[in-house]
């Protein structure tokens, strides 16, 4: 991925409205997990089946974390080589979801190690309802504490030098 300037945008309002300051200079904005894609369809169709409700949380989180990796690899294969800048939207940041769901034992570390290294990361802080909506859409269950997720994401942003947008209050910016 050395030939493009890559931004990860962590935004739990996918594919909702993006902050205007993101859109400028972001290049092509790619929603890694499509609204009507195979993954979301499978999650929504299975979420309420008793067999799926009995899966441990760490299993559905590992599958989400892996799905991001697969979609990133797919994007690498199909992207336009003449486009020097891209922004990839990651709805929920894996490390923070694992922690906010209380999952200490998982395979996330090895999966995330395969994500391409971005040039920058932006975090959009949304309200708790948006987080829970995304958890339901992407994981099929409300398995995390949204306040804990937000706190951890903001901490990760501080440690990693990410840009932070939004306050998490009053809905989407």
């Amino acid at each position, binding site marked *: 991925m050395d030939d493009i300037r890559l931004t990860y945008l962590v935004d739990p309002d996918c594919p909702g409205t993006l902050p205007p300051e993101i859109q400028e200079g972001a290049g092509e904005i790619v929603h890694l997990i499509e609204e009507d894609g195979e993954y979301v369809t*499978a999650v929504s169709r299975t979420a309420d089946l*008793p067999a799926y409700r009995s*899966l441990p*949380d760490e299993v559905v989180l590992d599958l989400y974390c892996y799905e991001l990796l697969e979609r990133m690899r797919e994007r690498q294969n199909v992207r336009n080589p003449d486009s020097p800048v891209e922004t990839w939207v990651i709805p929920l940041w894996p490390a923070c979801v694992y922690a906010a769901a209380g999952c200490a*034992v998982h395979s996330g570390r*090895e999966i995330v190690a395969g994500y391409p290294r971005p040039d920058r990361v932006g975090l959009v802080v949304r309200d708790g309802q948006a987080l829970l909506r995304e958890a339901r859409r992407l994981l099929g269950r409300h398995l995390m504490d949204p306040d804990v997720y937000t706190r951890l994401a903001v901490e990760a942003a501080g440690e990693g030098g990410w840009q932070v947008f939004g306050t998490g209050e009053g809905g989407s910016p």
Partner: protein
Amino acid sequence: MTHSPSTPILLLPPPGPITWLFPELGGVESALRETAAFQAMGKGCRIWDLARMRFGEGGPIRALQEEAPAQVLMPGGPRGRALKNRLVPCLRGQGIAVTLLESGSWELETWLEGVAGTPGEVVTVKVGEGLQLRLLTLGVVPDVESLLQGGRPVPCFLTRREDPGAGEAVETRLDPSWWGLLPGDRYPKEVQQGVRALMRDLYPERYFQFLAYENLALAGVDVYSEAVLGRFPAGVKRPGAFQEHGPLILAIDGIDGAGKSTHLRAVKSFLESKGLDVAVHKMYRHGVFHDTVTDVTRQCTGGKNLHLWRLQRLVKAFDSVKYYFTAVEPDLARRDVLLFDRYTHTHHAAGTGRYHHDPFTREMLSVYPSPHRLYLLDLPAPEALRRIKEREERTVDENPYMLERFRHALHDMAGRCGFKVLEGLASFEENRRVILEDLENLLVQRRAGRDG
């Protein structure tokens, strides 16, 4: 005596893996359970001792759903944490809070942590009238010769949760139920060899049991919670409901090189010659999915990150679920026959073949209906390998051991699931004759069933 839903239920977890391997610890376990039960009664809890109670279909989870207490309490040690991880998803949304009790040594593991002393020392503990236990608490692997003086101690690792500052030897993401058996999930090769040597020298009669647990623990499998709470709890039907109506579902399965593709083409031609609309499906997909998951599991090379084998099975099963909603379900509504090149049983064989355990693929693949007929082409691994070597595409499982394990797993399912087993060494013509004859009969039966 009746109880209101507001009376909490205290779940007492049964003995776990460390006691399975060292029954010597059973006396301490019993004493702690008695104490826990006594204290819980004082707090007005109902006690469900999972080691003593018997539950009906659906196990403790269904019983809890029916009882619907406002709160379920559990000891906050490793076994309580392991059970909570499995209970919470099953009870979510039903108004039942699952809470861990943080105080008190109500679990053997937390008690052991309390008496641990300095890692590497042998501690003698009185556990009853005239009974004492020699405990060896480990941070590192000690010298075995000196340990054997005075009788065999019970080795117990002070397995800690991952802590970047704690050093490589104790870093772990082991499921909590395995507490005490291993130093962690990532440690140097020499430590791993040292642990095995220690077990072989101290308890040679339990060495293979230890190796089996080590394999499961490092693979990220929590057999403890699955054994205690059960798989397919509370209203979860066994996978693959059989479809009386709708299209005929056929599958040809077998290990790589068994000759599935050739027979698939023959079956398709035969069915189409009968005027039937046939869709062929391959639920095991290639492309970016296969390349990505293969790259992830390459991190297992050299016996490291064994939990990624489990992840591989989960990811592959879920890809087949994605494929189901995209490609299979629409065909169930519009085709006469769905013909599968391998079916869900290959997923199950790959899981149990690799480490004798199914990592929840049965639950995931329960969206697929049972096939009306599955033809298993059975071929010895050496012959399959000889055939595979003539191909361009190769897979990581192309070795005689793994192929034989997959074959064995498929064979094991054949009797239970009613496969029609075909001799892979027989000629193509002979097997085709058997399959087509069987299909003729199947079609006649279905027609009769529909007419009658």
